[in-house]
């Protein structure tokens, strides 16, 4: 067992366990914090997979953006006076059965698959390459995303304002 392995297990554990708590904790705020750990764990996994730029983006966008947004959402939709911001769970049984079956199929399929694997060197930095790709090959997608963000902006504003 190498250090790589250890680190992987660490991050995997963080990700999975905290994700588990995200969906099971009754307290919403706790849940949001667990989500933070999940995101961290995922970022760690990205790093392990040699995607350093993505890991950073993950941290910046998810932790810095989305999570904060979600927390705002929590705050805005619950009266602050109530310290114990809790939420119930419903449909545990069907959800558990359905998800378990689904996970079974998914897991069986994915893990049994004989993936093509080719060993490759971990590049030092992906940022440059990604940048080039974005403005060359994926320029159209990139622009499309820009418009998408614009639309999201307009939409969110339109939705949220009085």
């Amino acid at each position, binding site marked *: 067992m190498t250090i790589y392995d250890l680190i992987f297990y660490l991050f995997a554990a963080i990700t999975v366990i905290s994700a588990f708590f995200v969906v099971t904790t009754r307290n919403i705020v706790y849940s949001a914090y667990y989500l933070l750990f999940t995101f961290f764990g995922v970022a760690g996994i990205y790093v392990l997979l040699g995607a350093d730029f993505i890991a950073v983006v993950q941290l910046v966008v998810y932790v810095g953006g989305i999570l904060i947004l979600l927390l705002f959402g929590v705050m805005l939709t619950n009266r602050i006076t109530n310290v114990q911001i809790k939420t119930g769970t419903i449909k545990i049984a069907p959800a558990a059965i359905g998800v378990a079956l689904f996970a079974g*199929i*998914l897991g069986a*399929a*994915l893990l*049994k*698959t*004989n*993936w*093509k694997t080719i060993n490759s060197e971990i590049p030092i930095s992906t940022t440059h390459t990604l940048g080039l790709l974005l403005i*060359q*090959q*994926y*320029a*159209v*997608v990139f622009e*499309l*995303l820009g*418009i*998408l963000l*614009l*639309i*999201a902006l*307009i*939409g*969110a*504003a*339109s*939705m949220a304002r009085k």
Partner: protein
Amino acid sequence: MNTNNLNYLVNSLYLIKPELVISAIIVLLVLVDLIMLKNKKLLPYISIAGLLIAGYFIIEHFETNSFAFSTSSSAGMLIVDPFGNFFKLLIVFASILVVLFSVTSVEIKNSLDRHGEYYALIFGMILGMMFMASASDLIVIYISLELVSLSSYVLAGFTKQSLRNSEASLKYVIYGGISSGIMLFGISIIYGITGSTNLYEINSLIQAPQVQSLTFLLAGILIFVGIGYKISAAPFHFWTPDVYEGAPIPITAYLSIASKAAGFALLIRFIKVTFIQSIDPEGFWHLLSIIDWKSFIIIISILTMTLGNFAALWQSNMKRLLAYSSIAHAGYLLLGLAVMSNEGITAILIYFVVYAFMNLGAFFVVMLIANKIGSEELDDYKGLSSSTPFLAVSLSIFLISLTGLPPTAGFIGKLYIFIALIDAKMIVVAVIALLNTVVSLYYYVKVLKHMFLDKSEKEIPAISTSYASAVLLIAILAPVLVFGIYFTPLVDLAKSSITLLGF
């Protein structure tokens, strides 16, 4: 390489002129909205002008057959081909009508101050749908799908006034979010197997026999979830009735036509381009046996139309009824795909044109009625034939056409579907579909019954229709009748539009 690339980008831009126009209009709309805070009257004109320009560009380059933003000589992010152009044209056409609807809609008028956002979002949808129609890369597919979704989430809850409006958008966003999530997971698996996200590349990669079929099946079906949700195919249709009922009527109409059309364009392209092995001279596709799409689509389509029709029997809300009917129609349309032949695709295209007219028309009448009586409940339709015979008759014709009775265009649409089915010797499926048509008759006729045969308990004042609305309505009505009798141009158009790049 850099210069080549840039040239290539510029060349590609020529190919996506309509999309560029639409994008420009979005910006223009936002700017105009900002500059002229008070006067919103200009916005629809800009929209229509933009759409007409876009439409012109589409028609101009209708016969183009080319990749755009190519990554290699045989693949690209986008494909510009007659098939895609057909759907783009359909989308533009539907958009023009929806813009016109929006002008007359009382619901939309009530939120006058946000008209800028409204049109911007519609154009966001248009853009997304156009990309959907020509996407050939899973990345573009996903992003464009999301673009359409995000815009429509907001539009579904646009007026924000009633409970059902907000409810619609919440349900839509949650449902859409998970569906696209599942689809994304499927895309990731395909990527894992093939190492590519481009449909053409994937196609050439999976010709090899050693591909993991089970995993591929899984991925294919997960991707279908995302597309199935867009075209509201059972069992991924659950959002449809609630959202259709909750959304403003122009948006409902729009969702039922344009976004469904885009979804179909995507689905057909996805299945055909990715899984095709060969096409025989009779026009039948021979797909890779990796996924038995034929059985799958047959099952889904039968399920869809049956569910749609049967559930529609019980509806008392006109919009909801039409929602279920549009689910059912998705089922009929899927049958065209299930044939897995060029003929089937022709049938789908014909059906779509017809369906656009009749469904938009039906929604338009429902909207006009709702404008006056403020309700879409079927019970309030009682005695409409006396208070507004024009609308009642128009609605009847649309509904009859939706049922598929001659001599309306709906019959022609169905006829071609059945021709395709029977030619492919799928008699049993055809019978099931036809029996479904009978079931559908119930609820369409129920509406007719309410309008013509029932007496209203309360006194309804005569409903007048504005001149402009009447003209628009007749403009939609005429093709429904004309195409029922003379449908050669329609078929010619569809026939010339089934060319997908490379096939």
